[in-house]
């Protein structure tokens, strides 16, 4: 198979039109579902928790939809295509993380909470300070994640539609097209959340997960069929055509790189460990994942939904392994980097190559490219909707209803505030993303995971399992973990002092690692412990209630 140049040939006409058509079909279907869901959304439980009527399989798909972001699909496939084995390492952390959610968090949270993460954290604490803290960390995590996704969306759409600097699209130049994409994605996500609430958003996730899994499955089968289902020859070809040789199949090309400098090698390996820990411990602290557990009727269905999610997500990451190595083997490393240095277009390029190979030349290639590009858009759109919902729920339920109104807000009023918050958060995310679009924001997803693992996870685990834990402990762990993660990243080489930094021309960095997890996660746990023991507050009565309810499901909402 010769190399294919995505933007130059096919994608300009047939493929671009088809991509846009398919994307519009997706938008039309999901908007119809959202409007239908809005008619079923009457109570606060409907808006925040989708009426708690989803089945284990439905919620498992929706969890997959929330979790398998464009970073997972395009990003990991691209990492594997360019760096081989090290991209795989990333997906393993993302998968193993689900055991933390399954064993320690999902069921107990479902039994004792109602709509948000803070419901569990504040259960036996003073409501106002703890809910404020939980709300702050929810919004920080969600906004970081949102900006990363939306800026990524702008860049990806230009790439996928082949809008290059100097060319125009519907009369827009490349920069205008990026901004237009960010606004369009933002506007759609606001509509999903404001109109459809959790019910609408969940259906969007399910449709998206189905499309993503189908697309990845088809491509995986085609790649493997090309090599007559011989994994070894696929790997051999990938290593050869990547231009990296045998090292392509071994760890060390991307993470923990060994260089001549001993200290650089040391920090590079520490960075790998730090990333590994943040990936595994972050998932169970992501607010938009935690709120998913409330959409099912009981904790046992929550357990089932996590089992489905593990199956779906695990299978998907196995697909990305085939896609990444397939792209390296069939498209080739140089052709991928020619299109996008970060490798984000590896999967669409592979789709085009497979289409040309299997389905009648250029037209087949254009059709496959369009399908996978449309799936990628759907992926971005669904993930940002989930994030917006989680943060607006926290603003309305935790901050407005409990902190400002001291629990005296009516249900209708609370939902109205949640809708307004979704609109405001969406608008803020659009504006921030437009300003951030020329910056390198890829680290924001890793930072979101680090904050979730350093600030949220310690507080959740202490709340559920440690009798002595109290208000001061909760505040210390949330603010301590949050501050440690954000400050360390601010003074790290991803923000300043390196060629790939957010501000490459300045240098104020002193922290050597790009990922703060190895320091900030233990720090968050330590803060929670210190805060607890220096405060005299304990509430054995409320802990009895929390423990009995979380373990037995008695009185669950």
């Amino acid at each position, binding site marked *: 198979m010769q190399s294919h140049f995505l933007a130059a040939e096919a994608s300009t006409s047939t493929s671009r039109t088809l991509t846009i058509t398919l994307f519009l079909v997706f938008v039309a279907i999901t908007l119809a579902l959202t409007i239908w869901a809005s008619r079923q959304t009457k109570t606060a439980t409907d808006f925040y928790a989708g009426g708690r009527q989803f089945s284990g399989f439905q919620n498992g798909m929706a969890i997959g939809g929330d979790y398998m972001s464009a970073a997972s699909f395009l990003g990991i496939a691209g990492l594997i295509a360019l760096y081989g*084995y090290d991209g795989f390492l990333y997906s*393993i952390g993302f998968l193993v993380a689900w055991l933390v959610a399954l064993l320690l968090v999902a*069921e107990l949270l479902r039994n004792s909470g109602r709509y948000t993460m803070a419901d569990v954290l504040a259960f036996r604490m003073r*409501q106002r300070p703890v809910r404020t803290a939980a709300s702050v960390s929810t919004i920080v995590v969600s906004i970081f994640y949102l900006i990363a996704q939306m800026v990524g969306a702008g860049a990806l759409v230009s790439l996928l539609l082949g809008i290059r600097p100097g060319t125009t699209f519907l009369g827009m130049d490349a920069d205008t097209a990026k901004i237009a994409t960010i606004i369009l994605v933002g506007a759609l996500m606001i509509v999903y959340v404001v109109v459809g609430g959790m019910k609408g958003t969940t259906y969007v996730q399910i449709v998206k997960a189905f499309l993503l899994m189908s697309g990845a499955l088809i491509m995986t089968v085609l790649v493997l069929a090309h090599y007559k289902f011989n994994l070894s020859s696929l790997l051999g070809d990938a290593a050869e055509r990547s231009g990296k040789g045998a090292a392509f199949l071994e760890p060390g090309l991307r993470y923990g790189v060994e260089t001549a400098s001993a200290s650089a090698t040391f920090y590079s390996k520490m960075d790998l*460990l730090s990333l590994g820990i943040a990936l595994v411990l972050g998932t169970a602290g992501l607010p938009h994942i935690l709120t998913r557990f409330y959409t099912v009727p009981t904790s046992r269905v929550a357990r*089932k939904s996590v089992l489905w999610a593990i199956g779906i997500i695990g299978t998907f990451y196995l697909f990305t392994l085939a896609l990444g190595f397939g792209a390296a083997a069939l498209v080739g490393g140089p052709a991928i980097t020619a299109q996008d240095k970060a490798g984000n277009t590896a999967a669409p390029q592979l789709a085009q190559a497979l289409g040309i190979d299997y389905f009648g030349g250029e037209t087949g290639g254009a059709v496959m490219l369009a399908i996978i590009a449309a799936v990628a858009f759907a992926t971005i759109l669904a993930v940002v909707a989930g994030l917006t919902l989680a943060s607006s729920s926290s603003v309305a339920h935790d901050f407005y209803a409990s902190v400002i109104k001291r629990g005296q807000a009516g249900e209708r009023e609370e939902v109205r505030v949640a809708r307004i918050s979704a609109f405001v958060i969406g608008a803020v995310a659009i504006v921030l993303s437009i300003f951030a679009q020329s910056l390198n924001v890829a680290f924001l997803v890793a930072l979101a995971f680090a904050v979730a693992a350093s600030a949220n996870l310690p507080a959740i685990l202490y709340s559920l399992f440690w009798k002595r834990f109290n208000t001061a402990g909760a505040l210390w762990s949330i603010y301590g973990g949050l501050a440690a993660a954000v400050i360390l990243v601010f003074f790290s080489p991803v923000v300043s002092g390196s060629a790939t930094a957010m501000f490459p021309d300045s240098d104020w960095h002193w922290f050597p690692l790009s990922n703060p997890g190895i320091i900030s996660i233990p720090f968050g746990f330590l803060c929670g412990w210190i805060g607890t023991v220096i405060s005299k507050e304990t509430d054995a009565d409320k802990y009895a209630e929390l423990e009995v309810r979380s373990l037995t499901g008695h009185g669950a909402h």
Partner: protein
Amino acid sequence: MTTEATSTDRYLEVQRSEDFARLRRKLRNFVFPMTVAFFLWYALYVLLSAYARGFMSVKLVGNINVALLFGLLQFVTTFLIAWYYSRYAARELDPIADKIGNELGAATTTATPAAPAAEATTTTDPEAAK
């Protein structure tokens, strides 16, 4: 968030009961060691990727090396632990939880979601906890 019918004394009583101690013990004795186990197993994998590159690059069959096998094993163990936990929970935890829940009466794990009337009441008295 308080369940109207259940008093604090009742929760304390249940928390001190034999059945509840058994439920808590069975849960913790499973999830804590298992969490430590899979975390160490994963940490071993990350550490080997960082510091044992020679070992990881040993080829086993064709181009399939130790690193790839190790990575795929992480998938296998994740699936197995998830399956094993769900079986354990259904056999060992759920029956005790149901028994305690039934004794506590009203809404239990197997019940339908809370009735609309209960959902409609506002959350808690925010300062009630303290």
